[in-house]
């Protein structure tokens, strides 16, 4: 039999029992209306979040993914790359990723342990590319220091006042940063705060040329972060989650530690909490409604089969195989629930349009919602009419005619 013949046959059978078909359909309509309402609102909300997180204009957003080893000591000692070139290429293939780069940590600042006057000090260093701050003794850093990678520094007097009586005395003296010896070429006056009561707690900030730092301390930096630039139209949190999933699966360090990212999406604010509650409620209403509707379809199909026992026998005598009888009844069930699904979608569209008046975002026609509505309703029809259809096909022709 050609498909058109099947469709027409099923359609006619439904029309013959308009009232019964319609009543059976109501459950499906309610269920699908609930599903499509909540899906439309959900999609509308998602677009709204996307829109606010990743507007059409302005700078592209970035998300950072950090690698954290289980063994932190190892992490500081190893020379291995935490993100291999392979990892980067893998992430570049994720949808919504514009570009990926390894973040050089501390690109503006660095920190060192140093011994001053027998005491261990923790100091921060600004990395200077051209001219540094003005000094009260010696000279400022300039771009030549940077070009030549000179191991020179400008320090606040507060840092060295325990060793040298005047600012001038400190000029030309050495100070070790990490395992490198730097020459003090300038002294500046520390902040007022730094000489106050907090002085002992505040890190002392010195200045060194950036290139010198890169040259002599490169191995000390920990490149444990990558920055992903997110293409327009994609949610940063989605991109980050997908990238992390990929890294955990196949990343070069996946057995050494974990990958994390800071979730900056607004999905966790109050609106989404409320929406999540409503979604759960409506989803359970939809589920129960679809299940009951399915039972209704099954019931109606069984009645229909027994009413049409004679018709089945005649069709079998005229050459219908068991398969085509089964297909006919399944198609009737599927067609009925699909029509219910379409009606349900239209209702859902109406409800979500009304709901959007009270929400800060709009809902609209959405292909995915349409497909899900029709797909789910057809599936309900298929599942619940299969058994009656099978019973119809198994009827003995001899008993019927």
């Amino acid at each position, binding site marked *: *039999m*050609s498909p*058109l*013949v099947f469709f*027409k046959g099923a359609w*006619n*059978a439904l029309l*013959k029992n308009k009232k019964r078909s319609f009543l059976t359909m109501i459950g499906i309509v309610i269920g699908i209306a609930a599903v499509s309402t909540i899906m439309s609102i959900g999609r509308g909300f998602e677009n709204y979040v996307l829109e606010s997180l990743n507007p059409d204009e302005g700078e592209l957003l970035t998300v950072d993914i950090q690698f954290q080893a289980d063994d932190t000591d190892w992490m500081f000692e190893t020379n291995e790359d935490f993100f291999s070139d392979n990892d980067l290429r893998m992430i570049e293939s994720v949808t919504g990723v514009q570009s990926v780069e390894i973040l050089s940590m501390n690109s503006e600042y660095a920190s060192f342990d140093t011994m001053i006057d027998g005491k261990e000090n923790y100091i921060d260093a600004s990395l200077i590319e051209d001219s540094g701050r003005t000094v009260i003794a010696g000279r400022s850093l300039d771009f030549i220091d940077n070009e030549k990678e000179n191991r020179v520094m400008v320090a606040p007097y507060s840092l060295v006042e325990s060793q040298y009586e005047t600012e001038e005395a400190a000029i030309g003296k050495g100070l070790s940063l990490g395992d490198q010896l730097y020459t003090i070429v300038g002294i500046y006056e520390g902040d007022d705060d730094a000489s106050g009561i907090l002085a002992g707690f505040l890190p002392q900030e010195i200045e060194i040329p950036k290139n010198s730092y890169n040259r002599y301390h490169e191995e000390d930096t920990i490149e444990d972060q990558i920055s992903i630039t997110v293409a327009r139209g994609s949610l940063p949190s989605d991109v980050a989650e997908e990238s992390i999933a990929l890294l955990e699966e196949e990343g070069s360090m996946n057995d050494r530690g974990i990958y994390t990212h800071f979730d900056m999406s607004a999905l966790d604010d109050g609106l989404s909490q409320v929406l999540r509650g409503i979604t759960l409620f409506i989803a359970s209403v939809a589920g129960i409604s679809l299940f009951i509707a399915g039972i209704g379809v099954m019931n109606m199909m069984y009645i229909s089969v027994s009413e049409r026992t*004679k*018709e089945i*026998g*005649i*069709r*079998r*005598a*005229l*050459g*219908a*195989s*068991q*398969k*085509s009888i089964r297909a006919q009844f399944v198609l009737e069930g599927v067609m009925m629930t699909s029509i219910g699904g379409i009606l349900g979608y239209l209702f859902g569209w109406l409800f979500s349009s009304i709901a959007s008046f009270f929400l800060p975002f709009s809902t609209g026609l959405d292909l995915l919602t349409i497909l899900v509505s029709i797909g789910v309703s057809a599936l309900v029809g298929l599942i619940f009419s299969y058994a009656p259809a099978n019973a119809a096909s198994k009827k003995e*022709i*001899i008993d019927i*005619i």
Partner: protein
Amino acid sequence: MIKLEKIGKAYKADREWIPVLKNVELEVNQGDFLAIMGPSGSGKSTLLNLIGFVDRNYDGNYFLEGNIVTSKNDADLSKLRNQRVGFVFQQFNLIETLTIEENVELPLLYDGWNYRQTKDKVTELLEKLGIGDKGKKMPKQLSGGQQQRAAIARAIINDPDFILADEPTGALDTHTSRDIMNIFKQLNEEEGVTIILVTHDPKTVEYCNRVVRMQDGVLTEEVR
């Protein structure tokens, strides 16, 4: 064309096997107009179902054009029913929710035709059987004779090898019976259609050229 060899069949009732067909041997040739006569319960309807590829549970061999059909599966038997045989029943057995045209075209649809192809053939056949104006009517709107004509149209639309008619005049008055039997006679003589008729009405037997009798599951041919 049809050859039955040692066909036997029994029903199980109360742990006892009750035989319905006993060693039935029958040969039907192209162009035969065969009547199977016998009282009710003699097994003639069982035999008819068997010949019409409806019943598959029996002993013995059934050959159609030299090919054995005894152990075929449902899909194959359905195809045989569709293409090789046309059924005509006592109660017409038209599908009441379909129009006459839709009823008549059903065998063609199950044979894989589409609606555009069937239309002309159906109209032509209804015309030929004298109910050309009734195509759009529902079966209930037609008289018994007209319904049986429609049923005959449905039986022959696929140009089957033979027609199985199970008391086709049982529900009709004498006059209409005669009309229907004349249609069969005409099909048999003018178009060479093989007809197997189950009946217990002696008047209809007069139209046939062979008569077999069924008594307690035993088949005997009457020599004329």
